[in-house]
């Protein structure tokens, strides 16, 4: 029992440590003259939220972000599930080299490839296209998504499909009717994982989209930075809260739907 109390205390302490950096976001967002210290506002105000909760600042960019990140997550999941099926079910000689090679590419910051990607987008006439940007984001998150999805799929016993094959179902029918429903929690995890990555991605939409009306929230956050490094901290903090809420909400929603556990079960295996 004593051990249990110690463990609880340690957990509470770690939670506090993780919570502490978030404190400033809350205090500064209500401070009329916010600086960079987490302290109770001398001049309490709601004007920071008022300033960011307009259509141009908080509305449209969030909607664009939802479109791009949501679209990218859906495309990634669909493509990754399709690719994972043969990787999980067939004896393919190139399986390991393929998986490792695409995984290596994730070590490269996306800034490294933006120059050729920009040129490519101009050629394909995809510059300033929300769909193009979404596709690119989906492509860059594919390596992790394929890797995780394949591992989730490995956890679904092949024997279940064999019965379906006997009944004359094609592999794709078996995938849709039998495998997919069983790995739905895993698919949800991959989707949210990619959504979060896309939601925070600044450089890709910044470079590939020209029209300011198409920019998502991750780009718009820089509208609080002025010339000579001046920053409107109160508004930045308020905006950060508004900007972060959807992803936290999504996480809570999904983990609730999965029965309280946002599980990575089986996602990470060699």
């Amino acid at each position, binding site marked *: 029992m004593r051990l249990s109390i110690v463990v609880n205390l340690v957990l509470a302490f770690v939670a506090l440590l993780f919570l502490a950096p978030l404190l400033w976001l809350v205090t500064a967002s209500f401070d009329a003259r916010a600086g960079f210290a987490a302290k109770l506002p001398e001049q309490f105000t709601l004007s920071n939220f008022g300033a960011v909760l307009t259509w141009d600042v908080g509305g449209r960019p969030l909607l664009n972000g939802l479109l791009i990140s949501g679209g990218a997550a859906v495309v990634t999941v669909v493509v990754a599930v399709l690719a994972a099926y043969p990787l999980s079910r067939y004896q393919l000689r190139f399986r390991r080299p393929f998986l490792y090679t695409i995984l290596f590419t994730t070590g490269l910051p996306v800034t490294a490839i933006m120059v050729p990607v920009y040129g490519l987008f101009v050629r394909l006439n995809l510059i300033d296209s929300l769909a193009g940007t979404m596709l690119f984001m989906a492509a860059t998150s594919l390596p992790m998504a394929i890797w995780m999805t394949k591992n989730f799929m490995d956890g679904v016993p092949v024997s279940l499909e064999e019965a379906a094959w006997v009944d004359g179902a094609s592999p794709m029918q078996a995938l849709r009717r039998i495998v997919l429903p069983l790995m739905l929690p895993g698919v949800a995890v991959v989707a949210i994982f990619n959504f979060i990555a896309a939601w925070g991605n600044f450089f890709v939409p910044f470079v590939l989209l020209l029209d300011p009306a198409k920019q998502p929230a991750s780009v*718009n956050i820089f509208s609080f930075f002025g010339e000579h490094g001046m920053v409107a901290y109160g508004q930045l903090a308020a905006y950060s809260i508004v900007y972060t809420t959807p992803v936290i909400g999504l996480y809570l929603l999904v983990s609730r739907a999965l029965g309280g556990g946002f599980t990575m079960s089986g996602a990470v295996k060699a």
Partner: protein
Amino acid sequence: MLLRTVTTGLTVVALGLTAAACGAPATDSKTIRVVYRNYSDFPQMDDFMKVVKKEFEAANPGLTAQLNPITSLDSDYLAKVQLMQRSPSTAPDVLFEDSYNVNADAAAGYLLPLDDQLKNWPDWNEQFIDATKQAGRATDGKTYAVPMGTDTRGIWFNKTVFAKAGLPTDWHPTSWDEVLAAARKIKQSQPDVEPMYMPLGKPSTEAVSMQTLEMLLYGTDTKDLYSESDKKWVAPSKGMNDALHFVSTAMTEHLAQTAAEAEDTQFAATQMTTRMSKDKIGFMIDGGWYARYWAPGGVSPWPEWTKTMGTTAFPTQHGQAPGKVTLSGGWTLAVGGSTGNAEAAFKFLTVALNKKNSTDIDVNCSWLPVRKDVRADPRLAEKDPTVPFWSDLVSITRYRPTLPEYPQVSNAMQVAADSVVNGGDPDQATRKWVEDVQKVVGADKTRNG
């Protein structure tokens, strides 16, 4: 095997697509794309462009100006604009360009030489101040950009602090020694005040080179960072060594901000403007634009600043003629090198920079005018009484030698200053700087000075 073939095939396709990045402009020649940076602390830029667009379209029926503001940090604005310029179909027709990039962008073919059009624009010949025309002139002698406004640098000092230290509130230092002497006096009389501030530390990037080291260097007998006459960079440089010694003295005697503050990425944004208003800084060697921050609605409103703050020019090392030194930068408008309608783009530029619009943008952005007729406008001094002082410095101002190699030479200067700020030996930092410069530009393109 097939996979490899498919992958290779795709790679080849992708390579072919990216490698040949040249195509016909996608926009029709009746529409011009105007690209500029949108700052949060002055929406004036966006408002300004909207007005210009309306006037331009009214005066030129059939032509359309498509506004393309970019919201970002300075460094990202540059990266994005240069990417856009690489592809003719997305290249801007009219571009809001830092005078700092004119040379390199001209060499890259991103900008159109404007000499022929400027020749026939009376305003250019009669109204634009000659010294400011340097801002848009490249090393090939052609002019690629027209300045919108400029800025100068000097000393802001706090009269309250000066009075307490027994220093004159009408201060005109005539040498570096007098500047340091004043700082020492402030330190003795008010230990909790930081005597001086100048841009230092890695986060201050280009400001360290321009506002600190070059302001110092240009006031020494070495005079130059780059010698126009023999087209050589001046390294080794006695003046650079002296400049680094000045920084070293300020740091070791604790006359300037601490090294930790200099390295703080948010210090300038969060502390500087407020500290000044709380009489916690004696003087700062910085640009003339602070009135914007202290104005009502600025980041650090301070109505009393006009009474408390004094301005004076930064002196040369020993008072060598002309006795004071200043540097200018500023923003320009340029025409894209691959524009489909150079005539329309230039027309837009002349509307944007006519007398009325120039005045508006200079007043709203606290920029110094580059036109004589705008300088005479009373609205400028009304909004900021120090404008006449900063404007007068324009006559002696100098621009940076922004050759394509300049960013790396400048970075080497920042590295040198940074090592001194963190306790390094100024002589060693100078030697390292010389090595770096010779590596960047080639030893044959440097000379002793």
